[in-house]
């Protein structure tokens, strides 16, 4: 009997103009959405490749260990085509520094070449789907009961020897069956488009993710069908039914998500990034005095023949005298552990900042649980690896990688070795200034005294020491470091098993809501007055 009712509903819907319009709507919206997202993804991949290449090149070109500051570039998730989540709000690369732990992504956030185009608020597949199927779910179900009652066919239906519950289940199944082709069509369309685009490659985990989203969207649709039914049972006329359900739809999809973000921003205050940076700089003041104390005892520390300095205490020296080299080494040996300790100290502040951001995000998420469509899109972003949590895992992994790198440096006593700041072999260090002058001036000045004399004669010019190349003193002459033993960062790949625990809460909430709704529908149908 259930099957019969379902079949009747199904064939009725299939022939209706509602169905045709819904189909056209899908055919219109889904391809455009997917193509726009695809285009965005392709340009993200392109920037990823360029950045990755640059990062690799930079790392491979390092001649000394203090230049080893790996830049981790995260590839865009292929599934971000379906759901962008928050992945486009943060940079996709992270620079590993010894003096500071990774906070958030760096680099450009724009996938598009023209940042202005970001303002066309293009929405992704998950959101379009959420809007579409919830609307269709409601429109196909709002007059299931009130409509039949108004036509007077409901009495006839119930005069048959069937239970009301059978009728309800039959009707739900019928609506479900008529919407399923539309939903499946949406997925098939988008997967077909992606299938024929050369740059997109899905792994098995990705396919599983898509499958899970697919299943989830059925639940989501069922939720709205049930909601439409409930409204239809509770409202006196089908007209009232449609009004109420459409406003519920508007509220769930357009009003509540915005309210939840707004409310969380008012409930949980976050610090500005500027303020955090200020606090970090304050924290560093102690460290800088310690640095001064160390350098006070090092007289030749600032003397160098050829040297490069840079961010995060990068220093590269070649051609300096042994005593300078030794002082450099002693400085690094003492100072780098202090910097590491301060990085941990600063992390306390950074973590407080991050915790606050997370708290705000969590609050927004929990508030948005009142809207099923938001639960659905959160679920989608988690399965697509683009949610806030996935991003946090990414940065957590980057921090862990930094720890391994630091451990590697400490274990191999790299801070205390010459290799940390000079590519020059220890045996080729020159001992005296005279020696150096001699080599650099092709023997024209035998020692420092002669050099000073030459200088006086030539009006302060020091060109003489560039006469002959002091080969050991030129940084560019040295080959890059062999970094094959360096720990490698394993790219984060989405694994379906790791995202299941994440979506547990969302799934539970939406299922609970669904069950409550079903119970309400059942109760209302039993009490329904068919006259």
């Amino acid at each position, binding site marked *: 009997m259930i099957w019969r009712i379902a079949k009747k509903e199904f064939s009725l819907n299939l022939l209706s103009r509602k169905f045709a319009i819904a189909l056209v709507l899908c055919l219109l919206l889904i391809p455009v959405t997917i193509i726009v997202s695809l285009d965005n993804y392709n340009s993200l991949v392109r920037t990823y490749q360029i950045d990755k290449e640059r990062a690799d090149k930079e790392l491979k070109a390092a001649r000394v260990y203090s230049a080893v500051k790996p830049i981790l570039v995260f590839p865009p998730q292929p599934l971000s085509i379906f759901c962008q989540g928050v992945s486009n709000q943060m940079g996709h690369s992270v620079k590993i520094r010894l003096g500071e732990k990774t906070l958030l992504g760096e680099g450009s956030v724009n996938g*598009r070449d023209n940042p202005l*185009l*970001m303002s066309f608020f293009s929405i992704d597949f998950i959101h379009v789907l959420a809007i579409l199927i919830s609307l269709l779910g409601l429109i196909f179900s709002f007059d299931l009961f009130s409509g039949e009652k108004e036509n007077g066919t409901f009495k006839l239906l119930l005069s048959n020897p069937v239970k009301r519950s059978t009728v309800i289940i039959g009707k739900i199944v019928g609506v479900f069956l008529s919407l399923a082709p539309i939903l499946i069509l949406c997925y098939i369309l988008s997967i077909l488009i992606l299938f024929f685009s050369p740059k997109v490659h899905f792994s098995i985990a990705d396919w599983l993710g898509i499958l899970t989203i697919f299943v989830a969207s059925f639940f989501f649709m069922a939720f709205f069908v049930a909601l439409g039914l409930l409204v239809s049972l509770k409202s006196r006329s089908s007209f009232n039914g449609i009004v109420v359900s459409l406003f519920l739809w508007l509220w769930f999809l357009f009003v509540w998500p915005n309210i939840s973000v707004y409310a969380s921003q008012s409930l949980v205050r976050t610090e500005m990034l500027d303020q955090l940076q200020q606090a970090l700089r304050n924290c560093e003041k102690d460290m800088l005095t310690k640095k001064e104390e160390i350098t006070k005892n090092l007289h030749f520390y600032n003397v160098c023949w050829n040297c490069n300095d840079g961010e995060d205490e990068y220093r590269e020296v070649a051609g300096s005298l042994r005593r300078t080299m030794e002082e450099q080494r002693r400085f690094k040996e003492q100072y780098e552990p202090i910097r590491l300790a301060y990085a941990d100290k600063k992390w306390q502040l950074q973590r407080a900042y991050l915790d606050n951001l997370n708290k705000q995000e969590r609050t927004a998420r929990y508030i948005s649980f009142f809207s099923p469509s938001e639960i659905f899109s959160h679920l989608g972003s988690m399965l697509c690896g683009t949610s806030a949590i996935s991003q*946090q895992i990414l940065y957590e992994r980057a921090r862990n990688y930094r720890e391994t790198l630091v451990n590697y440096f400490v274990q191999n006593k790299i801070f205390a070795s010459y290799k940390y700041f000079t590519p020059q072999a220890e045996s080729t260090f020159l001992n005296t200034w005279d020696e150096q002058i001699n080599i650099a001036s092709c023997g024209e000045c035998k020692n420092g005294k002669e050099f000073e004399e030459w200088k006086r004669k030539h009006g302060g010019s020091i060109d003489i020491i560039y006469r002959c190349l002091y080969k050991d003193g030129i940084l560019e002459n040295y080959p890059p470091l062999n970094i094959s033993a360096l720990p490698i960062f394993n790219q984060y790949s989405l694994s379906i098993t790791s995202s299941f625990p994440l979506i547990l809460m969302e799934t539970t909430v939406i299922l609970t809501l669904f069950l409550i709704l079903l119970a309400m529908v059942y109760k209302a149908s039993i009490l329904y007055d068919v006259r």
Partner: protein
Amino acid sequence: MLKTIILTDIKQNIQSLKLQVTFIIMLVVFAVGSIAYVFQCHDAKEDYRSYYSKMSDKIRKDADVNITRVAVERNDHLFAPLSNGFIEDAKSQFIPNNIQYNAYNVYGYSISRKTSNPYLYLSNELNWGFIFSILSSFAILLLSYDAISGEREQQTLKLVLSNPVSRGVVLFGKYVSIIISGVLMVLPGLLVSLIILILSGTLKMSSLLTFEIFGFTAVGILFIATMSALGLFCSVVSRSANISLLISLTLWAAFLIFSPNLAVFAADQLFKVKNSETIQNEVNTAMDAINKAAPEGSWSMMGDNPFFPKHELRAKNQTNLVNAEKQIKDEWYNSQFIQYEKASRFTFLSPVSIFGMASESITGSGYPRFHKNWDDMHTYQNQFLAWFKAIDAKDPKSPHWYNPQEDVSTSKQKIKFEELPLYSERLMTIPQRLTKALPGIVLLMVYSFLLFGITVVMFNRYDVR
């Protein structure tokens, strides 16, 4: 007769469930939005103040060193939060709000999101623009989709038409009544919002703000009229109210989702711009060529002696470099602006987007604001350079070799911070805003006339049985 039709319809609408539900939702959203705005506005102003004072400190420090430092250092101008954010934020999260400049060049623009949490989903602000473009458009369609097809189904249309009135008058009466009901639906919420904002002290009335509020409301009413015409159109297209509803919802969804996506699609496919890597490569090649062609000694420098002869070469070389970059980048930026403007024309299929465009022009926010600042910044930069050169010319201790990148071979005079010509944003004036908004307003009018005209024609042929 017209009056009777209008009055009965308004009365009917007011008693209907949909208007009552909409009314409540509107009030709630208006109130929630304004309260949230009160909090956020305060924070945003605080944040901006602290940012601005930091910025000024930086410039002050440069001024204490010397005037050349002030001219050469690149600074950022971050847009201040507007005082009319409660009306329309015009997607300000996605519009560039930061311009980098020094006295010699305006280097580029960026989107700076220093204050917001990257883990939070970016959402629409609950401002008036949002309420009008999403909530009220939806409510209007719901109000009007069954004006004709619904009456036909209830068999009342025959009775109405049996009176000695022309169909056109009936339709016009319905149209006017829907517009009036729509306005009645929105206005109380708007007033509540205004009252909240004024009582909380967030709002400081000025003539400009009054213009913005009234201008926005006027455009909003025009938008309501357009959407009403659209709803009426949907209701004569079909003989069944259900189908009318579905058509109007489809159109609504298409206007909200399809047209912005289509614009991006069109921009990507039809009006391509060069990507940033290509530009960077072009800049690098041009710079390499300049550096190679530079006479020997162009990179020599003697920090404490401005008159060191090679500084002239250095200044020339640096100027060439900056000019080369400027030429390539400016062309690229212009192509980006053109791409954006052309692409946004695609969104004009949708009245919602037209309304957005008109209201962002009225409130002087969004892209028009950015573009004006961009142009103003160029004017300012020229004035700043002229000012700097005038002071430098009077300084006998300067060789007047203008180097746009470094503090080497121009005046080393100190300057008081107060004497500096700082950039300050000039908001768009009312006539400017009106001219910018005019195309949108005209389009909305044309849209409503056309839709209403088509509806009249179709209604004349409508089978009322």
